[in-house]
């Protein structure tokens, strides 16, 4: 592979977007022995890392609560239009189906049956990431999967 064709694909390599295995192999071989291309790749990677580190911010924990409060204050949304309990129930009802399918599929594909530690870790991860919104619904799922 020539430097020019490697250079034109370095961004894709750094982004993990090289779909073709053969191209990927040839690119890696070239980069391993060509100093110029390797340095160019390192510069792209360094820029990516710095962008990620300095430009990424997370929403504050009160983001949604503040948003809903503002909407009520401006009359965009009725006060208490979504009481906490109804909200949790509504979200749970909508999400449980998806979470259930996802969790069961994941368990089937990733976990050996009867590996509760792994399963519990996965469950907690999904719960904390908001993928399972309602604990009781989630526990039911957890039981179903664990003891299937």
């Amino acid at each position, binding site marked *: 592979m020539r430097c020019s064709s490697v250079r034109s694909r370095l961004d894709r390599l750094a982004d993990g*977007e090289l779909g073709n295995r053969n191209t990927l192999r040839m690119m890696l071989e070239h980069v391993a022995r060509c100093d110029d291309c390797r340095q160019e790749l390192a510069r792209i990677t*360094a820029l990516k890392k710095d962008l*990620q580190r300095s*430009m990424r*911010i997370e*929403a504050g924990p009160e*983001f949604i609560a503040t948003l809903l409060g503002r909407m009520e204050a401006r009359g965009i949304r009725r006060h208490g239009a979504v009481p906490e309990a109804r909200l949790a129930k509504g979200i749970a009802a909508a999400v449980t189906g998806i979470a259930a399918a996802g969790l069961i599929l994941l368990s089937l594909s990733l976990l050996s049956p009867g590996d509760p530690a792994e399963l519990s870790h996965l469950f907690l991860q999904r719960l904390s990431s908001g993928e399972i919104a309602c604990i009781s619904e989630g526990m039911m799922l957890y039981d179903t999967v664990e003891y299937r």
Partner: protein
Amino acid sequence: MTDREIYELVRRDRDTGFIMLVQEYQGMVINLAYSYLFDRHEAEDMAQEVFMQAYGALDRFRGESRLSSWLYRICVNRCIDHIRRSKRVKTVPLELVDAATTEGGDGAVREAIADALRTLPGKFRDAVILKDVEGKSYRQIAAILGCSIGTVESRIHRGRKLLRERLSDPWEVDNAM
């Protein structure tokens, strides 16, 4: 949650669907806003305005386009408008010392990157931010920006090239290997 699921939820229960939409896209909207405003509080405020506008327009959103690209357009238009207005009013310069203590990463690097990003044409900046800050795939970025994957690739390539040209040499050498 997929756009279709959120859209279906909005149709059944507007408020619950809206909250799911916010949960799904708050990161993308805040980070996009931050790449225009470079101030955490302003970015959060802007994101709130974006979602409020989206809430008001939910009935008109028919699900033909993606939620991500719809929110992207609202966000970028509002940011550009905000910058235009604040230029007219003459802004207080960014308080970088304060920012360095309250926002993650190295203050000096962020300052340099922010300066470089400010001079970058929006279409390059957005593609680079969606890739490098938000970690979206080329396919997802193409859907958000409404262009082909090839266009995404070339915008990212040119955007990074321009960024590196505009960043000082010592920074680049320090980070090269």
